[in-house]
Structures are given as structure tokens and as C-alpha cells.
């Protein structure tokens, strides 16, 4: 199950700071879309609009539309909790809960329970142990972590290495089967080897999910994404196929940035 | 949806708790303040007590408390800070660190009355300082030492290792590094610790009761080995032991207010300082 995202005239203000200016863009499903740009250009702000994480920041005002499958997530009628369930997010620094590996992954399914239709009535019940086990195994497998941790699911998530922790966070996100997964610089705290594992995983994930990734590293965007959006000073300057962006960008600014001639 | 409802219920309960806490403390301060302001005056602060403390002021108590603070400042602070420096920067054998940790950590939680026993045993009896300012002051010093050490130690340890490395990498010696970098940046934190320790000493009563605080003096102490009055003990004494409890209530309130203002004022300074320190050094 995958989803397209369409933003329209998205504007974000932090107090007096206009952090995102008229961003209109389309994100296709089953693709990896990379968001690049210099520090402070609004990349994080942009993707945090999609699952409304900006709600948590005091003084942040979001204007404009973010249509996910045609529905505006910023609408007052929309349930934030549900939006966040459907749109997973993985953060810059691996942040597993200080619980066991199993509990990390089982956490969200437990919260949400199973919604069933019994005798025409919608009912919510808890997962059985078996169902949970399955979800945990499936998510960990999907995150390419199962083999490494299957013998120590009861060990703390904190006991893993950085790269493993980040994959655990990905598994955790997968456990609720989101439609879209947002990554905010997921590899910036990792070394090249761990990074390359995560990148592989990202490419693999796009088969089933719509993936958006913010990254500082242009090389990373080049390596893994299908489409790339370049942000600068809160504006989206250019968006296009990654190949096109890196071989013949249309805008002077983009070329300057990707060839390292900005600044 | 029940998930939402649950959230609302719990959160209201938490707000209720917070309100209750605020309320209780406001009530307490309100009573002390309104009761104390009635009697508080310049004369009250600058006169000797008269007629078994039922009249006159509380000057000896104020001065006594001031002297106590001075002794704590002179004894506990240098030893505490130096120990903290040593512990963070020099100490390197693991057993000594462990002993120290044990001592400081546990002695900070030991009841003040127990320190009173110590003072009585060592300073009053063994060293023969008698019931005097010195005995009480030294007792309070030892009592605040753990607090002092751990405050200073935290402040010093909070200076990031990267600053030390930066300085050493520039060819500074160890002491130059400590003197030029570690101490200056830790200073506000150390000061906070000092103020907190001293204000704790100022408000402490129990050890004084064992080391010779006087119920009433018509004069100021004429040396560190003289007997003395102190604000907290004065409150205790007037509220529970004095001859005419009800008649001296205004004095009790006023003395309590003076002590409260003194201690709260010092704490306020400490907290403002710490806040500014935190804002200033965001590593």
C-alpha cells in the first residue's frame, strides 16, 4: 500500500522566522525521494510537516496544504495520532527506546491493537502473543536486522551498535506498516559501513513504501534516490529525477550546490 | 475514543497535583509573611533582645548566623573546592575514588543531628572548644562539606573534556589548563554550590543545639570561642520553650520571616546564577 504526497503553497513560520516558503511539490509512490540543501534551508521542517511533527514545536505555524492521498493532513478534522501512524519517521540520531529489542518493535502494535470487524461491528482487541511475535520477526527481517539479533531479542536496544540501532528504529517504524516513511538524515551519525547498510535497506524499502529522505550528503542522495528536491533558503529550487539533477540540473543554484561551489 | 479520554483524565490529575503544591507553599509563605511583617522593623533587626527575649530585637541572632556562615565559608569552601579539583583532575587510583564516592554520597544524606553529635564529641569535648561559635561553625562546615564537594565536582566535571584537550594541545600545562579554563568556566557552578551550602548552614538548627547555641544573649559574641545566638534556634526556642509563647508570637513570626528572606534570597541568587551560567556556556 503506497501513497502519493502533494504539497501546495506550504509555508512554515517559527515566530518571526519564515522557514518554508511556498513549497509546492509532488512526491510519487514507491520511490525514494531525497531532499537536499544547505544547513538550515528547511529540509527537516519540510518533512516534519508531512507527519505533523511540527505541532510539537511551540510557536510553529504551518500554512498551506499537505495532501496525502488527497487528504489534507493539516485539516483540523484529521486525527494527528492516525496521521502519524500512517506516516512513519526515522530520526537523525538512532533513538531506540531503552527497552528490549523485542519491546522496541512490539511497542507500537501493542498500542494500536488489532481492529477487526466481527459480526459487522468494528472491534479493537489486543494482539495475541503469536501475532506480536510475527510482527516483530517480520519487521526485523524487513529491516535486515533479524539475523543479527534473533538470538538476543530480550537484550536492550541500547546494546546494539549505532547502525544496528538505526535499523532497529526502522524496524520499529515498519511494525505499524506505515504507508510513507520519512527519514531525517538517518545516516549522519553513522560510519560509512553502517551507512551503506542503511542505504541498501532504503532502496529495498521503496518496493513497498513511499520513502522520503533528508540528507546532508549529496552523494547519498545520488546513490539511493529516484527523485531529488533541492531546497535553498526555505524555497524549493528544483526537483527532478536524481540522474537529471546530478547530470544536468536546470537551475544555476542547484548546479552550484551539487558541484560544491556554493558558499 | 478511550485513548484520548484516558489522556485527558490523567493530565487533569497532574494539573491538580501541581495546583495543590503551589497552593500549599503559597499558604505557608503567606502566613509567615503576614505574621512577620507586623513586627518587623529596623529596630527589630538592630537591637539586643530584652526581658528574656520578649522585647527588643534579634541582632545577636543575626550576627551569630552571620558568623556561622563566615566559618563555613572559610573552612568548607576551600577544602571542598580543592578536593573537587583533585578528584576530577588528578585522582587516578580507583580505590581512593571509590572511598571518596562512598563517603561523600552517604554523608550527604546523614541527618544533621548526627553531625551535631560529631560536633559535640569532637569539637566541644575532645578538642575542648566548648559550646562556642567555633564548635558550631566547624560542625556545620563538616556537614556542608559533602554538598560543597559534590557541587564543585559537578561544576568542574561539567566542563567538557574537549576544552581541556584544546588547552593541553596548545601546550598549556595541567595547572594552566585548570586555572585558565576549567576553574573559570566552573566558577559560577562552584559559586552556586557555595551559596547553597552556606544557606543550608544558615538554616540548620539541630547541630547548633548540641554545640552550644545560646538561648539569649544581650551582647554580640566577642570571639569565635564565645557562645552565640542563631536565627533558626531563636525561632525554635521562642516557639517552644520561651516563657510566654503566645505573647511572643509576633517575634517568632518576624524572626521566621527574617530567616526565610535570608535563605530564600541566597537561594535565589544561586539559582539565577546557575541559570545565567547555563545560558553562557552551552557546550
Amino acid at each position, binding site marked *: 500500500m503506497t501513497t502519493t504526497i502533494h504539497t501546495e503553497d506550504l509555508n512554515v513560520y517559527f515566530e518571526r522566522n519564515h522557514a518554508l516558503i511556498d513549497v509546492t511539490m509532488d512526491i510519487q509512490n514507491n520511490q525514494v525521494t531525497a531532499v537536499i540543501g544547505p544547513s538550515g534551508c528547511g529540509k527537516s521542517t519540510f518533512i516534519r510537516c508531512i507527519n505533523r511533527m511540527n505541532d510539537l514545536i511551540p510557536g510553529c505555524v504551518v500554512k498551506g496544504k499537505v495532501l496525502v492521498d488527497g487528504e489534507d493532513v493539516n485539516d483540523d478534522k484529521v486525527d494527528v495520532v492516525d496521521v502519524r501512524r500512517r506516516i512513519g519517521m526515522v530520526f537523525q540520531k538512532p533513538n531506540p527506546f531503552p527497552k528490549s529489542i523485542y519491546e522496541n518493535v512490539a511497542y507500537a502494535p501493542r498500542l494500536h491493537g488489532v481492529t477487526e470487524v466481527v459480526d459487522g461491528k468494528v472491534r479493537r482487541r489486543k494482539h495475541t502473543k503469536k501475532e506480536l511475535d510475527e510482527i516483530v520477526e517480520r519487521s526485523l527481517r524487513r529491516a535486515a536486522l533479524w539475523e543479527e539479533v534473533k538470538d538476543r531479542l530480550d537484550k536492550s536496544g541500547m546494546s546494539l551498535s549505532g547502525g544496528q540501532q538505526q535499523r532497529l528504529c526502522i524496524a520499529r517504524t515498519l511494525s505499524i506498516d506505515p504507508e510513507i516513511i520519512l527519514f531525517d538524515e538517518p545516516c549522519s551519525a553513522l560510519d560509512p559501513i553502517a551507512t551503506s547498510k542503511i542505504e541498501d535497506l532504503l532502496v529495498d524499502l521503496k518496493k513497498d513504501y513511499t520513502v522520503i529522505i533528508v540528507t546532508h550528503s549529496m552523494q547519498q542522495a545520488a546513490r539511493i534516490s529516484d527523485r531529488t528536491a533541492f531546497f535553498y533558503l526555505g524555497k524549493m529550487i528544483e526537483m527532478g529525477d536524481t540522474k537529471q539533477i*546530478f547530470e544536468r540540473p536546470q537551475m544555476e543554484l542547484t548546479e552550484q550546490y551539487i558541484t560544491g561551489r556554493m558558499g | 475514543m478511550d485513548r484520548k479520554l484516558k489522556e485527558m483524565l490523567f493530565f487533569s490529575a497532574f494539573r491538580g497535583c501541581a495546583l495543590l503544591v503551589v497552593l500549599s507553599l503559597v499558604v505557608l509563605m503567606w502566613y509567615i509573611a503576614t505574621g512577620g511583617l507586623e513586627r518587623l522593623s529596623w529596630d527589630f533587626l538592630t537591637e539586643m533582645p530584652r526581658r528574656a527575649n520578649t522585647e527588643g530585637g534579634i541582632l545577636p541572632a543575626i550576627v551569630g548566623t552571620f558568623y556561622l556562615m563566615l566559618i563555613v565559608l572559610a573552612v568548607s569552601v576551600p577544602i571542598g573546592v580543592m578536593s573537587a579539583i583533585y578528584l576530577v583532575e588528578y585522582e587516578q587510583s580507583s580505590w581512593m575514588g571509590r572511598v571518596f564516592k562512598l563517603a561523600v554520597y552517604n554523608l550527604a544524606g546523614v541527618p544533621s543531628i548526627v553531625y551535631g553529635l560529631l560536633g559535640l564529641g569532637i569539637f566541644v569535648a575532645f578538642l575542648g572548644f566548648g559550646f562556642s561559635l567555633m564548635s558550631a561553625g566547624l560542625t556545620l562546615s563538616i556537614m556542608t562539606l559533602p554538598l560543597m564537594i559534590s557541587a564543585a565536582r559537578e561544576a568542574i566535571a561539567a566542563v567538557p573534556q574537549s576544552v581541556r584537550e584544546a588547552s593541553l594541545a596548545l601546550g598549556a600545562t595541567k595547572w594552566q589548563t585548570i586555572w585558565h579554563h576549567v576553574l573559570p568556566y566552573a566558577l559560577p557552578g562552584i559559586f552556586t554550590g557555595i551559596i547553597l551550602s552556606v544557606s543550608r548552614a544558615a538554616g540548620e538548627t539541630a547541630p547548633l543545639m548540641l554545640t552550644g547555641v545560646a538561648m539569649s544573649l544581650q551582647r554580640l559574641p566577642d570571639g569565635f570561642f564565645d557562645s552565640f545566638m542563631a536565627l533558626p534556634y531563636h525561632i525554635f526556642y521562642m516557639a517552644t520553650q520561651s516563657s510566654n509563647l503566645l505573647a511572643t508570637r509576633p517575634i517568632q513570626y518576624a524572626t521566621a520571616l527574617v530567616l526565610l528572606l535570608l535563605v530564600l534570597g541566597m537561594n535565589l541568587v544561586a539559582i539565577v546564577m546557575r541559570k545565567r551560567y547555563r545560558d553562557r556556556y552551552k557546550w
Partner: protein
Amino acid sequence: MTPRTTFNHELEELNKEITEMANVAKTAIERAVQMIADMDLSLREEVREMDRRLYELNERIDKHCLDIIALHSPVAGDLRLISACLKMVEDLNRFGRYAWDIAQIVDDFEEGKAFKKFESLRTMACLVVGLVDDAVYSFLQRDAEKASHLHERDDAVDALYDSIFREILTYMMEDPHKITMGIDLILVARYMERVADHACNIGEYVYHMVTGERLDPKARVGNVPQNVEACDRLFDHPCPRTELDEK
């Protein structure tokens, strides 16, 4: 687990494409030579088709290489592979051109059998097909040793070309009516010489790709016995190493 799935996948793709191209190029040359050998004009269209295909592949691989460089910043062996591909495709493309050129000339011949008379031209064709075959083989097998010896055989081809040139010249002088055909023959020889040259280029790229070293130009000076004996085998089995194609 070797990471960099996308990158590895791209490299595999590239490898497949270049393998296809190499095989097509080789086949094109072989067909052209077959046309000379057997005067089998039916192969003409096939050669043309292959020439077109090579042109397409040239474009495609070129673009692919640039994509890989732009997106994956290859280094070391990967980079050498890509740079080899980038250059090789031009040569392989030329194979197609020359095959087509030869096919066109053979087609024009009034007296088809003329070639048969020129033993040395046949020998040359043998040599050249062998060279191309080995060049492609050395690439597919990453065989630097083989690649490094192509030059020596190219020198043989050059020498042969010189002698053919003289031979045909004499032949034309004897009978001026054969001039047109003579010129055609010379051009064919010339084309084959060019093909051998390009095959050597491929050898150079392969050598650099595999070892990271440049082939010493001085090695070109050395003269080596001409391996002509494989010739007949070649003509009977035009694609002796197709089993490699699956690699």
C-alpha cells in the same frame, strides 16, 4: 553481505550491456569477414543491423557510465571498469562501422571470388578476427596477460597490410581493369587494419582496468611471431568463444 546493492546492480547491468556490445561487435566483424571468405552476401543485412545495434549500445552505455559516475562516485577497480567501458564502446562502435563498410564493399564486388585469390587477405582476416576475439575475451575474462599481447599481433597485421597493399598494387598495375576492385581490396585491408588497431586499444583499456597500470608503449616495439595457425579454425568456427557470453 556486500553492501551497495544499487551500485552493484548498476555495475552488473553495465557489464551485461558491454558484454552484449562486445559480442555483437565481434560477431559483426566475423560476419563481415565471413562475407569476404564465403561471399555470402546474405549476411549483409545482418551486419547492418548489428552496426545499428552497436550505435544504440554505444549511446546507452555511454549514458550509463556517466550515470554511474555522477551518482555513485566509483573509485579504484570500479572506476577503471567504467572508464574502460567509456572508451571501449567507441572502439566497439567502430567495429560495427568497419564491418558495415566492409560489407558494403563486398556487396559492390562484381567479381566476388576475387578475395579468395588473396591468401594474404584471408590470413589477415584470420588474424584480425583472432585479435578481436581475444580483445573481447580478455575483457570478459579480465585477462590482462592476454590483453598485453594484442599489440604484438597488431604489428603483424600492420606488416601484413603493407605487403597486401604492395601485392594489390602490383596486381592493379598488371591489369588496370582491376583497379576498382583493387582499391576496394585495399580499403578492405585498410578497414581490417583499423579494426585490429581498435582491438589493440581495447587491449590497452583492459590492461589498465585489470592492473591499474598503463600498458608500456615501448612494449609496442617488440616483434613477435605471428600466430596465424589459428586461422582456419577461426573461419570454420566464427564464434569459437561464445560460451563466454553467458559470463
